[in-house]
């Protein structure tokens, strides 16, 4: 099913940052995503909201090339997540829900590994600045296995901030963080928007999503619907597999 509108706020002819068409995915039972369509314009922040098991993480993993769609297509900046997986990976930086760091390495070593493998070159000062920014300067050389879950999440945020990727996929970025840490996430998202990045945030924190995102999309029963457009009217083109409520008719 085609979307009911096209994204705006970007040059004519440029592909959307995220484009889903008839996307279906499941794990053997009823599909978690039952044929969803979505366009996210470049430079927008979109929050994905929904109950546990609704498919938020599944959607982010599909976009990160860690799952293959059962049917339909997903594209990131015009690159197909199946046929052009490597190109998609160069465009995307992820914040996994569990942090994704190696426990036997220090925080600094984890960041250096991430920067090196993403092809960012070696810049020790950038790594130090990122660690300071997330409040881990003093714990930079401690092994990650000694970090609390909040510190691990902060380390993942530092790694994200070092990734020079135009699309960010954040899975529960506020989980395990104290108030200061949550404000740090908000600041990073705001900075990403200012830099022209596109950010998809899966979160249960609806008030925070409403405050930070350009649009909030609810996932439930395998379908999407635009719940609200807190700040801007052009973030999301459409979700057409279920009725779009209120003004979310784009």
């Amino acid at each position: 099913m085609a979307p009911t509108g096209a994204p705006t706020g970007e040059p004519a002819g440029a592909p959307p940052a995220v484009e889903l068409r008839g996307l279906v995915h499941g794990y053997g039972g009823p599909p978690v995503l039952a044929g969803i369509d979505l366009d996210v314009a470049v430079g927008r922040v979109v929050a994905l909201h929904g109950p546990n098991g609704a498919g938020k993480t599944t959607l982010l993993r599909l976009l990160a090339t860690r799952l293959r769609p059962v049917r339909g297509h997903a594209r990131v900046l015009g690159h197909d997540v199946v046929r052009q997986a490597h190109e998609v990976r160069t465009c995307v930086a992820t914040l996994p829900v569990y942090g994704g760091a190696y426990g036997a390495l220090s925080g600094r070593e984890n960041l250096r590994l991430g920067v090196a493998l993403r092809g960012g070159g070696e810049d020790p000062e950038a790594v130090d600045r990122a660690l300071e920014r997330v409040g881990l300067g003093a714990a930079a050389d401690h092994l990650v296995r000694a970090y609390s879950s909040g510190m691990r999440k902060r380390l993942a945020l530092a790694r994200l901030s070092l990734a020079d990727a135009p699309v960010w996929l954040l899975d529960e970025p506020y989980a395990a963080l104290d108030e200061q840490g949550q404000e740090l996430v908000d600041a990073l998202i705001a900075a990403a928007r200012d830099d022209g990045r596109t950010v998809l945030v899966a979160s249960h924190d609806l008030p925070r999503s409403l405050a930070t995102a350009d649009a909030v999309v609810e996932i439930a029963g395998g379908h999407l619907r635009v719940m609200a457009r807190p700040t801007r009217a052009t973030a999301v083109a459409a979700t057409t597999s279920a009725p779009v409520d209120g003004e979310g008719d784009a």
Partner: protein
Amino acid sequence: MNDLHAVLWIARKDLLQEARSKAVTVATVFFSAVTLGVLAFAFGENPLLMREGAMGALWVALAFAGVISAAQSWQADLEDGALEALLAWPVPRAAVYLGKLLANWGLMTALGFVLLPLAGGLYGADIGGGGAPGGGGETAPALVVAVLLGTIAAGTLGFALIAVFYAGLTANLRARESLLPVLMFPVVVPILLAAVRASNALVGSGDLDLAWAWLRLLVGFDLVYAVVCLVLFRFVVEA
């Protein structure tokens, strides 16, 4: 970043983790020593049987230790979703495989070099002694030792090629500990047979010609397995 750089970073990461945890080192050294000891006890007091069985016992110990090493190397990647994060980066899948292979091969080869004199002493096998009476030739001891070390390096490479591949394949399965040896040992048998024969030819008689013949076969298997594993590995880790 070039692919070689990625390979080295991943190998460095695995070796650094092992240097800190020593999980593989402790388990494989202990297990190998026990294996060599039990087999020496089983051979009894027959010196000929002991000498002829020395290299077989060495490769049995290395094979079992190699399974532990490969399985453990993927285990660390599964904690806290680290592998998931790694595979979401633009890293060539072949680089992930080669990095882990390099680290595993290094550990197995080092273990083989440590176990070789241990097996020689325990089983009364004259490693580097050149030709034995009635053997195939009188060869310089240094050359015999060099070829023997080369045989260990080539044999552990072939073993690690298969072990890392299948350990990656089974890493996310609940029954990985039992599945890994069942899947990999039938494939790795040619490597083990060639390695045992080449080693025996060197230690038993210093017969370099016979050793070279088995070593060529061993290197041939290494090349075939390297190509097959490199081509297929992306299907192991891709969604």
